[in-house]
């Protein structure tokens, strides 16, 4: 009788308990923020074309730039930096939390 194959030990969608699960949670949260603002916003601009909401997005100005142009050209790179900072701060914290009595210089 053949032995059943061992369950996968590393899987993004089935993380182990502990550090990996916390890490995967923050990864998914960051990716959600990344997708929604990048592609979700473009979808919104596209879907609202020719409507009142659409003209609001393209006529309202910020720093003399139409809102959609400012959001895409200037805000999104800033948003990415912000996401990276959030990720790093959170990962630093969970690393602190999960590290036991061990040589900390590794991290």
């Amino acid at each position, binding site marked *: 009788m053949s032995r059943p*194959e061992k369950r*996968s*030990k*590393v*899987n*993004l969608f089935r993380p*182990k308990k*502990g*550090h*990996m699960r916390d890490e995967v949670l*923050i*990864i998914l949260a*960051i*990716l959600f923020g*990344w997708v929604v603002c*990048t*592609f979700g916003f*473009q*979808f919104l*601009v*596209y879907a609202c*074309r020719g409507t009142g909401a659409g003209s609001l997005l*393209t006529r309202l*100005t910020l*720093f*003399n*730039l*139409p809102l*959609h*142009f*400012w959001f*895409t*050209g*200037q805000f*999104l*790179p*800033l948003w*990415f*930096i912000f*996401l*990276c*900072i959030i*990720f*790093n701060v959170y*990962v*630093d914290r969970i*690393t602190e939390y*999960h*590290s036991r009595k061990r040589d900390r*210089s*590794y*991290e």
Partner: protein
Amino acid sequence: MNDSSWSIFVVLLVLLSFILVGLRQKARESQEYGFGGRFTGRIGGGAAIASNWMSAASLMGLAGIIYLHGYQGLAYVIGWTGGYVLLLVLLASQIRRFGKFTTPEFVGERYGSKPARLIAAVIAIAISVIYCVAQFKGIGLIFSFMFGVGYEQGVVYGALAVVSYLVISGALGVPRNQQLQYLVICVAFIVPLMWLARRLGYFWVLPQFGYGRALTDLWREFRIDFTLPFADDSLFQWCALCFTLMVGTGGLPHVLSRFYTVPNVRDARWSVVWGLFFIALVYWSAPAFAVFGRLIEARRGMIPSPEAARAAADVVTLNTAVAAGLPGWLVGVLAAGALSAAFFTVAGLLMTGAASISHDIYYSFLNPRASERARMQVAKGGTLVLAAVVLIIALDPPGLIAEITAVAFALAGNTIFPLFLLGIWWDRANRYGAIAGMLTGVLCTVAEPVFGGTFPAAASFFPLTSSALCGTPLVILVMIAVSLATPPPPEAMRSFLEQEVHGHMD
């Protein structure tokens, strides 16, 4: 001195100063530490990431594509910055812990397969060649501007200059001071922009915001709407391009290898944040060059035809600086910055590509008994062969700088990114899946030119510059299906992934 003479003078001065500073650094480090290379902190690491990233595509191509397509061109800004989020959250720490320095090494080790390693090496070299073609186009255009010669002659002069610079730096053993390089490239891009904004009467302290009024003037005076969303292309095309550039960033060999130059994982992560900030500084500025360029043209009564605009797009930064009457030395500074970025990108990619030919193809596959000397000779010959191949393609460039670069990103996103993603996050991925995935990725990348005529759907779903939106998920599915249908990878590798790459806190 005229603009061209100033440019030649400033360019020579900048390149010479890099060599002198490098030599001084080498002498000091060997005196102080006894070995080359030093850690310069997270900010220094970030500047190195940004310097490594900056190329003709960032300093010339980006402004050109926005000048040509307006809002549609912002997909490049977003793609080339948003990719770092993917890279940071999904790969940076893990590949740092995995401990393999190049893409073929990672593939060879993770998937335990020589053929997979060979295919990965060939793909990495192909990416380098395509990327270098875009850089050579930028170098050719600048040399053509500096010496007042035709484009073809400019490319040949540029190629000779790059190879000479590589030989001189190599012979003197000059280390790259990437922090200084970033500083020079950034200042050389932003100071002329500030000058330009001031000259045109806009808010010059932060021209990245000051160009908003220029955009309004462009519409008010000439009815040119630069901000119209999805004017030339569809939402699908915008998203496909943006996604391709993002996953391509996550799979570009010379970007991935940056994480090994910092001493630990935490510093590697924080260096990415600083790197992204430094890159964004330049990317916030590029649209301003495009808008000022359009405005100056319109005010001079020049509304170029689409063909003329496309021909001029890649030199819009230099042309705008000249047309606005910037002092010759400042035009020279702008040219020197762009040329330095292209130069060092080419130098890095040619050397990495040649090392891959020597190590991953010649030594690992063809002749495992090769001596150190023979491998070195293959590497040197490889550099020249790659430079010659790039030169031949660049003599008749197939597109704009940004477009050619995007093809390299598409290939990286379709092949290397899924390989790393599943290699790190799914221990069941095996060598058969890796090989099938890479081959599928290559097919997706070339689908438009190869199959587009017979199957128009291939061209619609896999556009040459934007094939990864459909390509990457398809490759991931193929990798999963083939891996599940074939035997699992060795237990030792699965345990290594579990314990060393992901289980370091258990």
